[in-house]
């Protein structure tokens, strides 16, 4: 009888202690659900996976550093990720699921066409959406104040670095190829406009669906016009190296420009020789900051694969969000969207801030140093050619 009472007392004490700890933890720690809509299958899967991994690393790093502090509360970030397959219908369905089922207030969406498709949903429901996407003014504009773009567009890349490239390689004619979805078409328009501002003549433009296995017919006509350089627009993932390889096989010897950040490990697997001498935007020869170097180490430890520099592009997103939440003192997305343009962080590329009003009509564009590098197959080394940033009042 006595032993039974002792056991009951022990159980009751354990229960009380457990409940107390749980209660204390509940009072101090909350969960901030963050949605990730990104392609994890199909031709765009490599950059899509890079986006997810950037979010995973950043959320783990933020949580490990004590989470996000708002008053007495501490938020830990939990990711909710879905495969959008780079498909607009899938993207809309995921946005609905994230907003109405998972109840997220903050999310990242990969791909210009998907971002444009989900813009009405996220903005009507006041969900902060970070667009890992092109899409120009159709994706980020004053009518979509909750949509922020976290990667540089051709507009910024051309403005910052293209004059230097044009001069170095004596380029006067340019051909543009891109994906035939909204992302690619808008990107090509933006690139064409920016190239014409630099006095370049556009010899031709060619478009095809993502995942096209044979680019040779399409590129035959483009190459026949002998442009000094070809901008490979929004081609990404396995498409980028494949189209480059097939273009070189057609005898093209001009300058090859990848204005969209390529998934370097995939590129070097699929078409290593085509990387030789090609110009890659937003690839840095060495880690641009100590933070970037730490991200590389974390990536290689966690995933046991060669680092994908594309991960750097999205790593800052959650840190900017953390900073904005701590400045605003709330996770409320409406307040955050107003605070975002006023905050900046020391990010992976250097100073990361948000601007772009002079071009987009609203400050929703992430701005940070942009680089262009070239690769030497013989040495297996990257060489950074130029680095720059848009003007402070951009």
């Amino acid at each position, binding site marked *: 009888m006595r032993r039974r009472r002792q056991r009951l007392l022990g159980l009751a004490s354990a229960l009380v202690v457990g409940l107390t700890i749980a209660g204390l933890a509940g009072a101090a720690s909350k969960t901030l659900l963050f949605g990730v809509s990104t392609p994890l299958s199909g031709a765009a899967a490599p950059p899509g996976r890079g986006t997810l991994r950037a979010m995973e690393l950043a959320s783990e790093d933020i949580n490990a550093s004590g989470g996000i502090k708002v008053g007495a509360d501490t938020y830990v970030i939990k990711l909710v990720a879905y495969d959008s397959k780079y498909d607009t219908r899938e993207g809309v369905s995921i946005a609905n699921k994230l907003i109405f089922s998972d109840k997220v207030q903050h999310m990242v969406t990969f791909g210009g066409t998907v971002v444009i498709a989900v813009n009405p949903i996220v903005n009507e429901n006041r969900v902060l959406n970070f667009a890992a996407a092109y899409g120009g003014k159709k994706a980020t504009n004053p009518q979509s104040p909750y949509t922020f773009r976290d990667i540089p567009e051709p507009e910024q890349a051309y403005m910052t670095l293209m004059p230097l490239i044009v001069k170095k390689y004596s380029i006067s004619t340019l051909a543009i190829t891109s994906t035939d979805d909204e992302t690619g078409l808008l990107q090509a328009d933006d690139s064409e406009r920016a190239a014409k501002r630099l006095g370049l003549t556009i010899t031709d433009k060619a478009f095809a*669906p993502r995942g096209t*296995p044979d680019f040779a017919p399409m590129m035959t006509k483009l190459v026949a016009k002998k442009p000094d350089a070809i901008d490979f627009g929004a081609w990404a993932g396995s498409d980028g190296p494949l189209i480059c390889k097939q273009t070189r096989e057609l005898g093209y010897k001009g300058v090859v420009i990848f204005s969209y950040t390529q998934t370097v490990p995939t590129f070097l697997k699929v078409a290593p020789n085509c990387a030789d001498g090609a110009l890659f935007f937003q690839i840095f020869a060495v880690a641009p900051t100590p933070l970037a170097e730490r991200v590389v180490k974390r990536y290689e430890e966690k995933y046991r694969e060669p680092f994908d520099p594309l991960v750097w592009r999205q790593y800052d997103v959650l840190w900017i969000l953390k900073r904005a939440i701590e400045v605003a003192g709330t996770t409320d997305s409406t307040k955050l969207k107003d605070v975002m343009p006023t905050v900046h962080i020391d990010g992976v590329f250097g100073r990361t801030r948000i601007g772009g009003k002079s071009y987009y009509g609203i400050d929703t564009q992430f701005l940070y140093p942009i680089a262009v590098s070239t690769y030497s197959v013989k040495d297996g080394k990257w060489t950074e050619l130029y680095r720059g940033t848009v003007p402070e009042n951009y």
Partner: protein
Amino acid sequence: MAFYLQIAVNGAVISCLYVLVALGLNLILGIMHIVNFAQGTIFMLAALTLFVFNVSLGLNYILASLLSVMAIAVLGVVMERLFFRRLRGQFLPSLVMSLGLLLVIEGVAWLNFGIVSQAVPPVFPGVVQFLGASVSKERLVIIAGGLVLIAGLFLFIRYTRAGKAIRAVEQDPEGAVLQGIDLDDVTRLVFIVSFVLTALAAVLVAPTLALDPSIGETPLLKGLVIIVLGGMGSVTGTLLGGLIIGFTESIVGTFYDPVAASLVSGVFLMAILIFRPSGLLPYRM
């Protein structure tokens, strides 16, 4: 001149790939009256096994290709025995079975192979300049290999005992059985030949592609268009259909874009279905 030669070479490469896959599809269709939707996944599996043998295990390309083709031939025997033999001649159940296999095989491939594209290193690197046109050596090998395989299949079907048995079953299954031909042996052989053709196409083309589990989708789709265009069960029709689709894709793809090329192929297909539903050269093995 060089420009048009380039278009012709592009068309020949596309035609060779499509014809080989379509021939594999058409053999099974002609003998077993089965549209094997899993044929694209056979193409994909052959390319991925080549990658495993060549890149992961470090075997040379020729040996890796041989092992890959042999593995696919064994798979042909297994699939015929387990899934298709009992459905011989039953169009709808076999169609559903092949669709199911497509989904299962592709799903398993995604889970195991991962989402990042892989590549088989170039076997014949470099380009050849010919009358101003630039052709990669890899593409020339595809054309040459494709022509050899197509010629080999013709000779096999026309002159060997096994080929004659296949033709006999295709023309009159009951008559063939009365002549002592074992129907099970012939269907097994047809699966092996069909899968081997598709596997050979895959190992020829693999060094020019970014490999992932979706690479079989386009050859399957085009193969289906070609057999309808050329004539179901017809080898010569398949060859003709393949040339039409391949050169259409090359010409329209050059002057317009790949989507327009697919549209034109679709228009050809509809026109054939309306005006000549049995295809351009029907039922001639």
